[in-house]
């Protein structure tokens, strides 16, 4: 089957690729573009490990078609740090040990970034509900919530 030609912007860079009509954006990112930071934990939008930001909106990239990225802006975990300088969320996740195995971490970071963009000073409850679309099986979420609280406070002070 002939592929569809797609022009999009990923982490600020212009990117072009061919994809099949039924291919997910997650598969395009991982298998065609080598951006394996987004993970497939379920493929059904239940775990959030594939979270990305599409035109400013948090989405599961396993529920978006590669073809749908045409003309849009995609932000992935690979674009979160500014060169060598980690985003405050990334830094605080390491400092608070908010990851054990780390497979859910890229999705959590993207979701937390989106949450703080909409609500820079969330309560614990707002953080917990804001991140309820992302599954973590290792941490019990305690250290994740604390890392987000700490990062939010750093970002507000900046």
């Amino acid at each position, binding site marked *: 089957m002939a592929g569809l030609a797609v022009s999009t912007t990923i982490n600020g860079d212009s990117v072009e690729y061919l994809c099949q009509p039924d291919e997910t954006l997650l598969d395009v990112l991982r298998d065609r573009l080598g951006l394996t930071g987004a*993970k497939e*934990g379920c493929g059904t939008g239940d775990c959030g490990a594939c979270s990305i930001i599409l035109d400013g909106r948090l989405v599961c990239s396993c529920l978006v078609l590669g073809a749908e990225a045409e003309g849009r802006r995609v932000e992935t975990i690979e674009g979160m740090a500014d060169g060598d300088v980690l985003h405050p969320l990334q830094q605080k996740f390491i400092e608070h040990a908010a990851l054990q195995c780390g497979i859910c971490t890229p999705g959590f970071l993207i979701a937390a970034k989106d949450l703080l963009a909409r609500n820079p000073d969330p309560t614990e409850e707002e953080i917990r509900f804001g991140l309820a679309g992302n599954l973590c099986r290792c941490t*019990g*979420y305690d*250290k994740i919530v604390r890392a987000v609280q700490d990062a939010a406070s750093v970002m507000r002070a900046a």
Partner: protein
Amino acid sequence: MTAGFDPRYVKRDFASIGTRPLRPDGIDKVTGRARYGADFNMAGQLVGRVLRSPHAHARIRSIDTSKAEQLAGVKAVITAADLPDLTDGDAAMYDILDNCMARGKALYDGHAVAAVAAVDARTAKQALKLIAVEYEILPHVTDVDEAMMASAPVINDGVFTDGVEPKPAKPSNVAKRSQFGHGDVDAGFGQAEVIVERSFRTEQTHQGYIEPHACVASVSADGMADLWVCTQGHFVYRQHCAQLLGLEASKLRVTSSEIGGGFGGKTHVWAEPVALALSRKAGRPVKLVMTRDEVFRASGPTSATSIDVRIGARRDGTITAAEATLRYSGGAYSGAWAELGAMTAFACYGLENVRTVGFDVLVNRPKCAAYRAPSAPMAAFAVESVVDELAGRIGMNAVDFRIRNAAREGTRSSYGPVYGPIGIGPTLEAVKMHPQMQAPLKKNQGRGMACGFWFNFGGQTCSDLNIGMDGSVSLAVGTVDVGGSRASLSLVAAEELGIDYSQVRAVVADTSSLGYNDMTDGSRGTFSSSMATISAARNAIRIMRERAAQMWDIPVDEVGWEMGHAVALGEKNGNLGRLSLKEIAAASGKTGGPIAGHSELVADGAGVSFATHICDVEVDPETGATRVLRYAVVQDAGKAVHPTYVEGQYQGGAAQGIGWALNEEYIYGRDGRLQNAGFLDYRIPVCSDLPMIDTQILEIPNPNHPYGVRGVGETSIVPPLAAIANAVSNAVGVRMTHIPMSPPRILAALEAERAG
């Protein structure tokens, strides 16, 4: 054991151990750079896919793969015929082989029957649809109690209950009977003034790691093979794959990827032998990644159980006798799951008369795998529920009743061994003083507490420690890092050598670069690899002392080692001063060449571990929904190497236990098919379901480890089922006996109580 290594605990002041540095793999994991099972690719790689039985129990009459083979882009199709039986009478290996690919009979919904390798996922999926399997559907059984009935369909004609004399004449689904205990249980019940007896059930759960099983296999024409895989034990995977494929172990190099959660579920091969067989047939590398549906249907789960517990006590609070009968489903294959339940059930208590009997039961469900302290949480649920009820009947506080009966140093455990210094008493004393015990409870709220035990494992371990010419240190370990052990083991190397944490880099070596290591299971990773690291570091220090002696031209026995330096001992050497590790390393080319310390040992003496948890809940009587309000974990770590990661283990185990207690269960239809093979319907706790989880680390040194370390990973999942059941029972005034306590079950229990 490495010659001359003394593993005994010696009290000391630590410089690095107990500090909380940042983990060495942190940046890779927050930037998306870390490579997990599915993140690796090889040139010319094909995509593998597995065809699975839709039936719970069926004879496979025929498999026609010809149409699939003819599809353009398909490079290999395999069935059991491509995995000939090379297990040579090894029954456990035969079960693994049969589980990887059904041989004549499909034994559960999800059992693999064929597999393809094609140029892309779309072609592979299409090819699966072209494979024609003719099934003869057989009667099935998925319930553990039903499977034990005489009328149940027998799943494996070759299974005659092990552990009973004489050997049964007829096959059955009871694979094994095991018994533990001591004393005279009947006499003990005769002395009891109060006896509580109850039956319990727990449903099957999955480890629920977020990363599905994934591997890339490459077999070359000359028999050389490589396997990249997410696993808890790459050396064990090598052994199993090599045996099943007929490869020489040394020609199969297995590299463990970063692992996206395991919890015991990545200790068994499933897809890996299939991927290797596909690669061998296709002559190209094959990547095989399970879907989430496959993860639920074909990997993992823990046992469903049915448990009867009876405990008797005098009115002064002394338990006089305890017994339990424990039935554990093992999936369609034999296991040792009930045995572990029977061993752990009463391990927290010092009992004069105790007996436990376990039955391992075959059902038409996926082959059970270990799940964090396998089998212990269910047994603890049943026992700790009865302990709570008994305390109430006697009129004693639940904590005081447990303290009175707690095992202590010198107690003969219910499973046999006599305990050394242990932490059950101290965790109970700490819980008694915990502020959560004083927090006020409102209407519909309840508090529960419970204890838990896990053995902890040691086992075969090998490490290499190499001193670079610049004085930096590389540590190669063979235990997979599932939750931060590279940080812990770097701390251990730094401690022993007397250098800074930042000078050490720990890596997990592949199977061709290091001697054999058992897998990271049984909470053994940091316990055993730290022992091997200490031993390797001491060997390196011995060499560095020799080099320093050479540099100073004095006998080696006049050279000591302090704080990262060789020091010349004795007054006559007073003018020689010190030589740093860095100076000795820089001179190594002229003093005998590279400096390294190796270690190969069996890490014996893993210290047993105990925990006590407190849980406060609120139950909505309208909906039956339970909310966890507060949760606290108190556990003995022996010595917390990196306390932040110890806390993480405590919190993670508690969270998994909360999910198990309240929500998670495999739901089978009457057709024997799994109805909730996805994260939407098999609901693990999300962030908004949980409160902060308080942790308290106790440190009662393990006498059999130089630093006193005990395993910490598993015990934390043992008490939650019971603690939450006790809390819910206290909140609603009805004893809950069926896990998970999902809203419908709680409503039904309330309704039954109202109906009297």
